[in-house]
């Protein structure tokens, strides 16, 4: 394969000819495209120059386009060409005749429309989400009336996937958080000689607040994203439409089992994670403050009223339902392309964590007089 070459010659009559030869194909041109193109443009500035392209061995549209552009989108006056090169240029000529639509100018008040569009989108989200909640409530009623037709198998599978399989990671994170929290608190408490209050701090903090929120964030990242992606892909592959065609309710078969599974799994995970986090705190307290395991376990029920545990379990149920609903809401909005899938999965995780924090704030206000030690 010989590369493209350009030779400038002067013939007997004193006319200057640019003789092109070799392979004018993309793969052959690629290595020295910039130099060749610059040379062509320089030479083409001289309108009286003759062009001889008879020695070109092969010409593809990239090579032809280079020449065509150097010539200013028309044939030069003095051109020696070969018949079999004609069709390549004919294609360029045909393509050049098509009118190109200029991109539409941005209207001056575009930003108003953008804000309006965003507001409408938020509104649609709220309406759809409310619709989804309503549908799930109807499904729940249906399940209570006809328990035999409920999707128990799917619920059980979801329970295993988002509950049992989440146990190792929640335990690890809980244990480490417990250690860190206990260690940092111990440093402060030592200064005040208030060592024994480590049990109060860890007990109240972890059981009432940290345990449920920690689990909710982990589950939103772990199961919420998986649910959105699963529903999204089912949407892309038209599986959801296939379900609808067979007269199966998508909310009953896809949304309800996920919600039920998380509503059951989350309080259990909260219990599990809080227990492990307290263990981590206990270990750290023993090292830092010499508080024995026996004392810790004995004191815990005295300083943390049992109501806190009920609040934590209630939070677990509420967070689980919210995470599942938000995940399904975004999953069902996925349009059939990869961009939409990734955008909705991100939005799902971010929104469900935000919603969890919001619901947690509501809980804090609603339970402000319950379970606090007197």
């Amino acid at each position, binding site marked *: 394969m010989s590369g493209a070459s350009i030779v400038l010659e002067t013939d007997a009559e004193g006319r200057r000819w640019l003789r092109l030869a070799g392979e004018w194909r993309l793969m052959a041109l690629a290595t020295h495209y910039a130099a060749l193109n610059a040379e062509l443009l320089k030479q083409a500035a001289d309108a009286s120059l003759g062009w001889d392209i008879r020695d070109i061995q092969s010409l593809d549209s*990239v090579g032809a*386009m280079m020449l065509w552009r150097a010539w200013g989108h028309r044939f030069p006056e003095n051109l020696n060409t070969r018949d079999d090169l004609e069709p390549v240029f004919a294609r360029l000529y*045909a393509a050049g005749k098509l009118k*190109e639509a200029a991109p539409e100018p941005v209207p001056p008040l575009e930003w108003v429309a953008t804000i309006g569009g965003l507001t409408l989108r938020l509104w649609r989200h709220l309406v759809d989400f409310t619709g989804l909640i309503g549908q799930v409530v109807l499904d729940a009623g249906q399940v209570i009336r006809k328990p035999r037709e409920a999707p128990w198998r799917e619920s059980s599978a979801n329970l295993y996937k988002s509950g049992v399989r989440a146990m190792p990671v929640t335990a690890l994170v809980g244990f480490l958080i417990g250690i860190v929290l206990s260690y940092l608190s111990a440093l402060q408490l030592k200064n005040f000689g208030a060592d024994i209050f480590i049990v109060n701090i860890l007990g109240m903090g972890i059981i009432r607040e940290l345990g449920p929120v920690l689990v909710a964030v982990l589950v939103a990242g772990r199961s919420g994203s998986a649910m959105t992606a699963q529903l999204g892909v089912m949407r892309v592959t038209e599986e959801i439409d296939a379900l609808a065609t067979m007269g199966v309710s998508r909310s009953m078969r896809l949304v309800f089992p996920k919600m039920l599974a998380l509503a059951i799994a989350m309080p259990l995970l909260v219990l599990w994670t809080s227990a492990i986090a307290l263990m981590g705190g206990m270990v750290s307290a023993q090292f830092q403050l010499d508080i024995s395991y026996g004392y810790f376990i004995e004191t815990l029920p005295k300083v943390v009223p049992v109501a806190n545990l009920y609040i934590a379990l209630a939070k677990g149920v509420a967070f689980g339902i919210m995470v599942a609903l938000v995940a399904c809401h975004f999953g069902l909005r996925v349009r059939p392309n990869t961009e939409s899938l990734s955008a909705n999965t991100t939005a799902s995780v971010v929104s469900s964590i935000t919603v969890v924090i919001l619901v947690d704030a509501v809980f804090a206000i609603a339970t402000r007089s319950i379970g606090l030690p007197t």
Partner: protein
Amino acid sequence: MTAVIEIENLSTRFGETWVHRDLNLVIEKGEVMALVGGSGSGKTTLLRQMIGLLSPTQGRIRLFGEPLFTGNPEQERNLRRRFGMLFQYGALYSSFTVFQNIAFPLRELGVVDEDLIHDLVMLKLSMVELLPRHAWLMPSELSGGMIKRVALARALSMEPELLLLDEPTAGLDPDRSESFVRLISSLHQQLGLTVVLVTHDLDTLAGLATRVAVLAEQRILALGTIDEIMKVDHPFIRNFFCCDRAQRALQGRISVENL
């Protein structure tokens, strides 16, 4: 004539099933080779092996006289730039516009300036009979026929010498399918491409293929022009070519006495 693809003693196994055994095939420069065969006969597998998406269990495949897997990344990449593939469902990048899809391979090459890329994309669009305004659409806004055309334009954007088509007309209505066949056939003549296609559709076969390879019983059962293949006496070929619908499809090409 020089061989573009040489396949020697190729065997493929998926689990316990042998898809191909000792398969040999040579595809010459400039021909349109159609691979036909029943479902599960390994047509698409063979096509994917030809371009190195799958590696065969045994045997050798050479493209343009070079092996596909040389261990030299530079060489492999250059080899891969010499062919274009049209996937069955287009495989357009859904987050790119039509323009970006067609420009993508050229931009990856990284040597051609943006103005030239723009002109080349417009040229490819006109070659596949689309309009410049279609360049700014997203793949999700295109119809099935347009997706195939854009995918073809993308496959052609690197000026390939070899074009591979996986079910080029599947999912198109007969009218679109016919015009797509005409388009490929005219591009084949204009650009001097070598074309390998996998198809189930007899109209596509009759309209495009210069030679046909029939895949059955884990090997190339028959190889030749359509007329030659029709003379082969084998249950699969009889069923595939000689039932009523096949006769209707091939009517334009051959007289009934040949059957």
